[in-house]
């Protein structure tokens, strides 16, 4: 069976954004985070699931997340939650990516206008 490859864009600031957004709502452990990302993005973002942990550890090391070990149903897991530093970082990332997405949407819309053979407005 082919090994799942990590979407390159996932490693350029998107994972931090998605993880901080998810953890803003509730604390989660790694497996839960990956499942939530897949279900909420309709599997549009495919990742090697294990690479989520370096991102989590990096955010924790920067002070954006805290972790605690919790036993649920007899299994000990590490749960992550957002800190005030993480919330500020989330706000910044959200603004950056919203602006970027808007810009790309405008660019694509403009591209179709300029490139449309029939000159149709979209």
């Amino acid at each position: 069976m082919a090994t799942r490859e990590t979407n390159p864009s996932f490693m350029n600031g998107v994972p931090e954004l998605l993880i901080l957004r998810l953890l803003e709502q509730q604390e989660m452990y790694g497996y839960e985070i990956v499942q939530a990302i897949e279900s909420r993005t309709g599997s549009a973002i495919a990742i090697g699931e294990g690479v989520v942990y370096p991102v989590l550890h990096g955010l924790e090391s920067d002070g954006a997340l805290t972790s605690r070990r919790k036993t649920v149903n007899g299994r000990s897991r590490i749960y992550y939650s957002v800190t005030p530093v993480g919330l500020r970082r989330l706000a910044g990332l959200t603004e950056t990516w919203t602006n970027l997405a808007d810009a790309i949407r405008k660019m694509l819309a403009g591209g179709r206008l300029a490139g449309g053979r029939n000159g149709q407005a979209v």
Partner: protein
Amino acid sequence: MARRFDFDFDALRERLLEAGVAPRYARRYLSELDDHLADLIAEEMAAGHNAADAEQAAMARLGAPEDLALAMIRQRQFQSWCARAPWAVFGVVPVLLLVASLCFTMLMLWLGWKMFLPTAATPFGRPPGTHSRFELANIYFQANQVAYYLTPILLGWGIGVIAARQRVKAWWPMVGLVLIAVIGGAAQVHANRFAGGQISIGVNLYIVPSVLGNLNRILQAFVILSVTLLPYLIGRGGNMQQDLNSFGAMVRRPSAFLPLAMSLTALTMLLVPIATTVISRHTPVSHDPDEGAIAHLWQLLMTVQMPIVLFFAVKWLRRAPRPTVGILALQAGAWLASCAPVYFLHL
């Protein structure tokens, strides 16, 4: 980590450590990956796969080992200090610790001199009159002397343990061990009382311009180097062994190599003064009623290793009899070798 799945966590750990990832980050990463894999397998089995297929599918979802390794290695904040600044960890810090230890030794010597020998010209002689070896003053000075001799060895062992644990290439640890051995061998504490009653305590690091004059220092440096180098080389060799029950892997266990190192230390502690005496043709080694710091340290090393050997035998004889018997024979041989000079030379 106990192997639960086919995923090669050991290889991933080695890859991370060799790339300079700090052991605590590597350990936590592997632990979470292990849990994650268990969750994925449970999910695949719930979806109707058999155990083998579920594990294969789960490993594919987890990611390729090299991708998992690179995701960690690329983040600089996970790098250990050994990887970031090996010159500091293995060069500067041990030397500073050794200097601090020498300063502490001198402070303790000065305090002991003031408290127990306030009128003596030097703190190195014995106070007048009959004294028990268990008298507080004697214990105090002997303990200080033991600390003086033991600190470079402990620092060297620390360097070896850190280097072996973090899979550091041999160059910097060797530099650190040589530095510690040279400074530890050359540093000689001296203490004088001047005519006006003023006290002077210091450390000489000079090398006198003759081989014979330096013999004691050279031998002491050699002892420190050999005693600290052995555990490091054993640990390094053991890391390369894949079979955990092979002789090479077994001998690197602390309960296996510590008794060997202790016996070697005890033996060299006896041989250095003997060799110095014989070569420099000074007074023959005599049996002092108060045996001195070296004798006490020798007894300590030979006794303390007994429970460690017992622990090693109890734990490993059943699990891996052949290498365990071999290592026990080595430990016994080293122990006997350390006792031999005492028996034959009536020390």
